[in-house]
């Protein structure tokens, strides 16, 4: 009987690990890597979804970069990015209040989280009706004597995108709060006791205890929200405004859909998708780099 050497045991472990990983890798390959590769290939072609794609080199990218609709969508996405501080800090403040035991904390936690369990389509359809010119919200304003404030909230280009952003924040707020609450639960309570003993105000406590203790979570939430603003707002836009009025709420992921399925230009839509991937990757990696740089000892 021969004993198996360390090398043989190591190899068999690798084989076992590979076998366990194989199903997941196969799924990843089929549903992620291959589609990304296909989209990349299609972005260099002219293809209407039927027949054989025609190779046209970088023509799609040249056209996209001078396309006023793409530039309008990009501008709108950058506007949404400006709301990130509200998106990131808002839930942290509410989480800190709930964690600090504000009266009715459990009720608030439930209320804040409720929108997060609603489908984006439900949220979009609801606000679409609520905010119409003759809809319930404006009717309410008129009923309480504030009729002058009644407005075409989603049909006026000056208010449509800000209102959409507020709805997006409202809809995702609860998830942020929940993530922050989980992070706050890990903070050593003695730190809060010490702050109290030292006579720190609520604001000082948050600044010197909560923020440093949850910094990693803030960074995590920041990057998630940042990516989401580029890639997951489609159902909200579709149900709220369809990108209108005009192109005032037209965002990049909506453009990918529109170019492919309304315009029938799958090659062009793929080019927009590839550029979207590049933009999101660049902004996300830059953010992560800045966060890491900020953590380095000076």
């Amino acid at each position, binding site marked *: 009987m021969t004993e198996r050497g360390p090398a043989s045991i190591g190899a068999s472990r690798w084989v076992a690990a590979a076998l366990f990983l194989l199903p997941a890798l196969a799924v990843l390959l089929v549903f992620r890597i291959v589609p990304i590769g296909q989209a990349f290939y299609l972005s260099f072609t002219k293809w*209407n*979804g*039927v*027949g054989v794609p025609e190779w046209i080199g970088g023509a799609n990218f040249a*056209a996209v970069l001078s396309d*006023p*609709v793409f530039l309008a969508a990009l501008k709108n996405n950058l506007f949404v990015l400006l709301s990130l501080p509200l998106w990131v800090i808002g839930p942290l403040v509410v989480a800190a209040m709930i964690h600090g035991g504000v009266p009715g904390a459990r009720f608030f936690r439930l209320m804040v989280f409720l929108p997060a369990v609603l489908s984006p389509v439900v949220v979009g359809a609801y606000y*679409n009706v609520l*905010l*119409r*010119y*003759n*809809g319930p919200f404006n009717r309410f304003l008129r009923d309480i004597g504030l009729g002058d404030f009644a407005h*075409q*909230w*989603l*049909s*006026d*280009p000056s208010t449509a995108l800000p209102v959409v952003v507020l709805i997006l924040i409202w809809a995702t707020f609860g998830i942020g709060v929940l993530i922050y609450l989980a992070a706050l639960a890990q903070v050593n309570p003695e730190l809060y006791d010490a702050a109290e003993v030292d006579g720190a105000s609520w604001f000082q406590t948050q600044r010197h205890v909560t923020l440093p203790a949850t910094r990693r979570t803030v960074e995590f939430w920041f990057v998630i929200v940042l990516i989401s603003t580029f890639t997951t707002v489609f159902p909200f836009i579709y149900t709220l405004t*369809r*990108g*209108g*009025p*005009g*192109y*005032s709420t*037209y965002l990049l992921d909506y453009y990918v859909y*529109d170019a*492919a*399925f*309304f*315009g*029938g230009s*799958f090659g062009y839509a793929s080019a927009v998708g590839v550029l979207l991937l590049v933009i999101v990757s660049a902004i996300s990696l830059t953010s992560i780099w800045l966060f890491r740089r900020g953590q380095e000892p000076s």
Partner: protein
Amino acid sequence: MLRMVKRAAIMAVFTAIGATGAMAAELSGELTVWDWQYTSEKWGAALKQIDEEFVALHPGVTIKHVGQPNDTYYQLIQAANSSETGPDVAMMHAGTFGVLKYTDSLEPLNDRITADMRSAIKGWESVGVGFDPDGTILGIPGSLSGWVFYYNKALFRQAGLDPDAPPTTFDELVAAAEQLKAAGIVPFGGGNADGWGNLQYLNSLFPATFDAAASQDLANGRIPYNGDKFRTVNEQLIMLLGEYFDPGYASTVLWTEGVAAFQAGQAAMIAGIASDTVSFNEFLPDLGDDLGVFYAPAGAVSDPYIPVSSGPVWSMTTYAANKDLAWAYIEFVTGARGAEIQNQVAGVLPINSGYTLPGDAPAFVRNMLHDLQTEDTFLYASSLMKQDVAFDWVRKIQDVVNGVTSLDDALGQLQAVQEKD
């Protein structure tokens, strides 16, 4: 039991027709049909009856009829075409919104169309490539549709207007709107939350400036979108939108709230469809004798055409498994009996002269059908515009109305879209 009796009766009728009976024996298999009306109450009932009778005629056939959602219909068609796993027969829109956009995935039908079918059915220009009735035909017109102005005679009367003398020119239209507005009545109704309301009005105003030849020139790129003619139509529309529409127009949906408001007498006029939805079908029950209709007003063109085309068109996909079966279904649904069922059950106007309205059809409907069949007609603007041009126009005109951009810039950009390959 009733259904069995009905089936037996239908079979007996068709068996009596020898030639048809012989053909029935040849067809079998499953046929997949897609449309966007199958789930609606009246249209759905008509299509179900058509399927039932077709299956009774061809007992070896089963129909898998899929009612797809209206607002994502063409995305689903596009996806199905990509994978070639979609319908054998598809209901499509006429013109560039439907059949003329999906030329790669729809089967040319010229070789199957008989001389009788040619002469009985109108609207071939709306299904022929290049708007050519003698060109490659990609679908068979299934019903008659077009764009008209419906108006409420009671509101006209209330404003001191002659209810039996609706506007015939653009200037008269504006004058009527002004008088209605002065009487505290909203002149124009509808809704534009999704951009369709403006397109509807564009279709109805377009013939005042474009005669049939100019319309075709615009469609084929010989007249630019930033030229004087198209600018005139847009200026007229923008003026009306600014002065004579309900303030909630921009945030309401035409197909639901717009229709409901006109039914309820909250607007005096609405650009509607001659058949199908946003049509007399929805307005007659509420307005009765107070419902009136007039057509595209005259402008630079003194004798404008009525913007008309086929309503839904029936097409066969290139990947249909059994093309003879698919064609038999198309023949049936667009034939005289198909037209009869669609009219009787869903109130759809027939485009096939093999079927004429029954004597007890409402006078309003008989008169309108007579006008659509005897007056000069041509395709409407949105059927002529390339789809991406039409979609871009829908957004651009909102920007112009909202002061985001100028009409000059908007039309310049629209022309750029037209010229894009």
